[in-house]
């Protein structure tokens, strides 16, 4: 069976794949966290490109968007917290590099051997005209509950993240009885009640 991907698309997939892997490797090779962040972003964007080639433009868009923002956040985060954010000094912060390499390579080899040796099933039916529509129907239909639970999970993440990350809460701002007229913030501003 010949693929219905045009040749350029196959070429693009291969090229982008190589790029994503290379960028991925770069994440752990470069000597600064900021650079690592951007290498990671590159990898994501390459994968998003492959998604486009695979006729998943919506998912590709979402991926690119989300990851760009996430990486931006990460960069900010690292500037806030991390030592050596911009690669001002060389760093290696690894342990057990050899063992990790063995395990990582092992995983890769194992998976690759599997991928290239097994018999792949044939595709069931054709690619639908509008993949985005299909996804939308799934989200609102067959997989609605999944999205609902994910929603609750996001809710939980927000609360959990807040609890873990912030030291100050409403009682710090408005007093134990919540009777302060204005919030007691170190830096004025923020939301009133």
């Amino acid at each position, binding site marked *: 069976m010949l693929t219905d991907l045009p040749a350029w698309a196959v070429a693009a997939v291969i090229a982008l794949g190589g790029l994503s892997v290379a960028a991925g490797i770069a994440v752990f090779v470069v000597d600064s966290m900021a650079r690592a*962040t951007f290498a990671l972003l590159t990898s994501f964007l390459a994968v998003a490109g492959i998604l486009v080639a695979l006729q998943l433009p919506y998912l590709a868009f979402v991926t690119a968007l989300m990851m760009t923002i996430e990486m931006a956040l990460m960069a900010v985060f690292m500037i806030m917290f991390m030592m050596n954010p911009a690669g001002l000094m060389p760093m290696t912060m690894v342990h057990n590099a050899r063992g*990790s390499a063995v395990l990582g390579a092992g995983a890769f080899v194992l998976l690759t051997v599997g991928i290239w040796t097994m018999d792949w099933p044939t595709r069931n039916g054709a690619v639908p005209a509008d993949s985005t529509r299909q996804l939308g129907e799934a989200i609102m239909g067959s997989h609605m509950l999944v999205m609902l639970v994910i929603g609750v999970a996001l809710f939980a993440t927000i609360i959990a993240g807040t609890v873990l990350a912030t030291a100050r809460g409403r009682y710090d701002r408005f007093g134990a009885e919540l009777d302060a007229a204005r919030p007691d913030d170190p830096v004025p501003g923020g939301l009133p009640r």
Partner: protein
Amino acid sequence: MTAELVLQIVLTVAAALVGVGVFGALSQQSIVMIMMGFELALNGVLLGGAAAWYFLAPQAPDAQMVVVVALVVMAVEMAMGFAATIAIYRARQVDMVDMATELQG
């Protein structure tokens, strides 16, 4: 080129991303770098999901949903990771996992 060959190429890329991600997660000391390793591995998952949809089961939305869920996992894990990092940084001025070894045995 057959579809199967392309599928295998794409999956190999995904496997490589997973492998690199695993290596990163296992080898890095910095919490954030470990998280990056996982992101990379999830990147491979995401690619695998897309490949599954396009090459194998385009009629069902399940594989697309896998991609969506993978994205969500990436996002929330990152968020949670930041929170955890901040918490331990506040408590102990530590951002390396090797320095958090009070609990053992």
